């Protein structure tokens, strides 16, 4: 579906959207990005609140903008609101989607983290963190390579940019903004 839908979001539609994000918040281990396929299924395929174009643009815009990637969820809500006619609806969409995706997971993390912090010298807590640490590091390395592979279907150009950027970041003290600007320029030339 590529056409932008014109919607008439009712109170029960908004509630359904809120409940959708609330439930994803709890299962989003590894970050909200892991629930993207499920969001796409519900928001685009099933409810037809967003076009495919709007959905993927929301994700790449949030990636390109400063700030946490989770803001793509705000953009999804924003676009659903705009599709139903006004900026006010857009702001309502932003508020509901962000409350939904943040509150349950954040509350749970907060309490578990407090518990873990108070009991941080307990052998079981120390062992849990020690055992998870190499896994978590591996996840970072693989998240980066997965994201790079997703951009431009892992073309030789994108892997080259990726490789050079990783080495530069590990070896030299370069401000990330310079690298991002170079990436943008190369992307402009290569795929523009």
């Amino acid at each position, binding site marked *: 579906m590529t056409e932008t839908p014109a919607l008439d979001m009712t109170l029960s539609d908004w509630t359904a959207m809120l409940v959708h994000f609330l439930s994803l918040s709890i*299962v*989003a*281990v590894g*970050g909200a990005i*892991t629930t993207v396929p499920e969001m796409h299924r519900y928001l685009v395929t099933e409810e037809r609140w967003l076009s495919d174009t709007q959905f993927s643009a929301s994700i790449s*815009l949030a*990636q*390109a*903008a*400063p*700030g*946490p990637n*989770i*803001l793509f969820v*705000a953009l999804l809500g924003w676009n659903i609101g705009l599709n139903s006619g006004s900026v006010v609806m857009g702001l309502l969409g*932003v508020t509901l989607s*962000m409350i939904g995706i943040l509150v*349950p*997971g*954040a509350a749970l*993390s*907060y309490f578990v*983290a407090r518990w873990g*912090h108070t009991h941080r010298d307990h*052998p079981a807590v*120390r*062992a*849990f963190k*020690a*055992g*998870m*640490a*190499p*896994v*978590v*590091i*591996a*996840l*970072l*390395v693989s*998240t*980066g390579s*997965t994201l*790079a592979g997703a*951009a431009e279907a892992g073309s030789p150009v*994108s892997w080259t*940019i*990726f490789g050079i*950027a*990783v080495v530069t970041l*590990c070896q030299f003290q370069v401000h*990330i903004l310079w*690298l*991002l600007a*170079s*990436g*943008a320029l190369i*992307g402009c030339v*290569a*795929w523009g």
Partner: protein
Amino acid sequence: MCTKEIMEPDIDRPAATHRPRSPADLFVAFTVMAIQGFGGVLGIVQHELVERRKWLTREEFLEHWTMAQVMPGPNVVNLSLMVGASHFGLRGALAALMGLILLPLVLVLALAMVYRSFAGHPAVGGAIKGMSIVAAALITANGIRLFSGLRSNPLGKYLCAAAGGLAFFATAVLRLPLVYVILGVGIPASVIAYLRVAK
């Protein structure tokens, strides 16, 4: 007001040398990090908290990050809650979270409005792709930098390498969901660590 660092090389929990002064300090710090974080904040967060502001050591960062990763929700959001909470409780957690979210939210909405008028332009699409690859490289580079945080890990070099290699293979090559990796690699590694810690 910074606590003086006492260097005791044989203690396995070296303290960070600085700490935030107030919830407002946390709010400002996380706002500054968030607006520098193009393509995700994680890269900047580690750099700012560990290397620049020195609020956390690499080991502490890795501990917080581990918890942030295995809990549901965005990792960076969880991390901000934990760092905030460890200094000022609930107030600190909320201050850090709001710092992370508020200004970037305004910026991304502004960007979305600008984007509406340029959406069809291929150069814009190309630039965004180029930036997202660099952002991805930043995440990978941070993972590589955190290797040194494993030095004091009770698992030791070889088991750490095995667990990390397995987890990388499972997620990057087999594309298994995170949950299986945590249960299949993380939990067994934790059990081994427990046997070694409790010994």
